[in-house]
């Protein structure tokens, strides 16, 4: 995978992630509540299964709140890199830390 050519996607994901507000909000007397509605989702109990990298990627794409094909792929690589039976590709083995450090 050519990471440099996908800079645009990476940047978009980064900006989306940055938009999440982790900072203490100025105390807002007009705001009556910090509660959010809970989304029960379609299924309270979900089957959790994957045995290949593409299956894990598919699961990540379906369930993660922040969508990014790049991140899903490097997560799958990170999950499978110590599996003796799976070749994740030497050049991609350590991509996740690098990917995140370089944000």
């Amino acid at each position, binding site marked *: 995978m050519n990471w440099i050519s996908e800079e645009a996607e990476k940047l978009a994901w980064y900006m989306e992630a940055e938009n999440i507000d982790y900072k*203490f909000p100025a105390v807002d007397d007009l705001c009556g509540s910090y509660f959010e509605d809970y989304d029960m989702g379609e299924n309270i*109990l979900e089957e959790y299964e994957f045995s290949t990298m593409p299956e894990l990627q598919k699961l990540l794409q379906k369930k993660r709140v922040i969508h990014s094909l790049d991140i899903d792929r490097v997560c799958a690589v990170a999950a499978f890199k110590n599996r003796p039976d799976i070749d994740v590709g030497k050049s991609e083995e350590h991509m996740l830390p690098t990917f995140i450090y370089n944000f």
Partner: protein
Amino acid sequence: MYILGISALYHDSAAVLVKDGEIIAGAQEERFTRIKHDKSVPGYAIKYCLDFAQIKGSDIDAVVYYDDPIATLDRWLANASAIGEERKDLLNFSYKAMFQEKLWIAEKIKQILGGLGRRGKLLVVKHHMAHAASAFYPSPYEKAAVITVDGVGEWNTTTIGFGKGNEITILKKIDYPHSLGLLYSAFTYFCGFKVNYGDYKLMGLAPYGEPIYYDVIKSELIDIKEDGSFRLNLKYFDYQNGRSMTSSRFEALFGGVRRTPEQEITKREMDLAASVQKVVEEVIIKLSRTAKALSGGIENLVLAGGVALNCVANGVLSREGIFKNIWVQPAAGDAGGALGVALLAYYHKYNERRVERKDIQKGSYLGPGYTQKEIMNYLVTHSIPYVKYEYGMEFYHIIADLLKQQKIIGLFEGRMEFGPRALGNRSIIADPRSETMQSRLNLSIKYRESFRPFAPAVLRERCSEYFDFEGDSPYMLFCGYVKGKQDTDFDLAEYFEKQNDMTEVIKRKRSDFPAVTHIDYSARIQTVTEEGNPIFYRIIKQFEKETGCGMVINTSFNVRGEPIVCTPEDAYHCFMNTEMDVLVLGNFILYKEEQPERYKRRDVYELD
């Protein structure tokens, strides 16, 4: 239909087996591995559950896990991307756990179980739904408001919901990084106790202090709305970076660096403990009012999540009278999640009707038990001297008489408790009337800080004579106040202005039951009934007949840093490692002075 619930890889791994809606077995992994708060995939606990039911892994209909690994990864990534240059430390700290362990939970359980039951696939449930299920389904209520509060599970830290019949609906949530559990943990850490495992020590310290930091906590650290929702001021915390709980700003705010473990406790720590306790109580009360409003004014509340183990806050909530009835899951922390998901799968996935039983939690006596024959085999094999009795008047009289003689007794009966509290089956018991017993127990048995009080196990029918507490507290999850206060003129605040020595304060007699009376006259009450635990009840009843006192001290059967004993062997080693006088193993009584010297050994546990 068998359903296996599992909690693992965070804190307090556990397995629970449910058969046709009945909880038949449950245990924490730490009890078998002897590693306190063991978080590994609970192979021994799973084996115990299967052996108890005499089934194989392939007989299980569904295996259910108490956390959604993908949602957890989602939060982990978002956290990593949000913390800027600090993310390298976070990754180093948790990268392997996330990608090599948590994502592979199905594989790891499969390896232990030889499969994933008849379904062949792992079912996962969101963490707070697991807590909610652990609170609602075992409760005696057909309808109840449900509150869960902990550090964090996937994204959520607090939820409010509603249970009716076999359904639970979660309505509101607060997400990470805004967490009441993590706020409390930050103070636990700052006061020199272990995060996740020392929270109860901070709670025990609170009555020594004054809540002088309450205002500053509310103005600087947490913004609390009237409905109990809150936001934290993250610049004072460091947990997002995965390094420590508090930042240098926190130190600046509270007058210097944190106390290190084993360092002397000063008035600052006491006041901080009192202050954050007051804040937690305020949030819990406000959340409860909101839960009541959201559930249409119903009179029942159920609670779970680690914060629900704060029995002082539970006591305040009970006295507040917002709800007529409150039920708290005794394994309110992560272990209870295993129980919650097993019941949830039964009721929800298979759409079964809610089972109506009086005590679905079964007194939380869900762990391994040992027969008379098994105990005797152990004693005979190791040439351990004992005296055997039948369960009857003589047996109960001897134990009561030993208590009267100020002996400290290890009590090992029936099935081990599920959850953090010993409730009479793996307990150390003693006379609560003694003025020296608290110090004796702390220093020569538990090897722990002497400021922490012991709990009274009291005959249910006499509870209101001794305490201003009405109702049931079979799981030791509510605090009440001792009646007949003494030494009320003593000015605690003035005393600690001049010195930090807590031992002198502890020695002061504050009631007729000084060993179970905390400095503020509170007590962590366990009510005992004959129906709930016949042997324990009869021991206390006999003690009452012989002394007039209808309660005993009940503390967990372990030393500091050691998990509660599980087997007769664990109990014997703990007995021999401490100054305990007598060990009651089923209907066998062992006296310390008769035991062989060769069995005396000092196990060393990492201090908690």
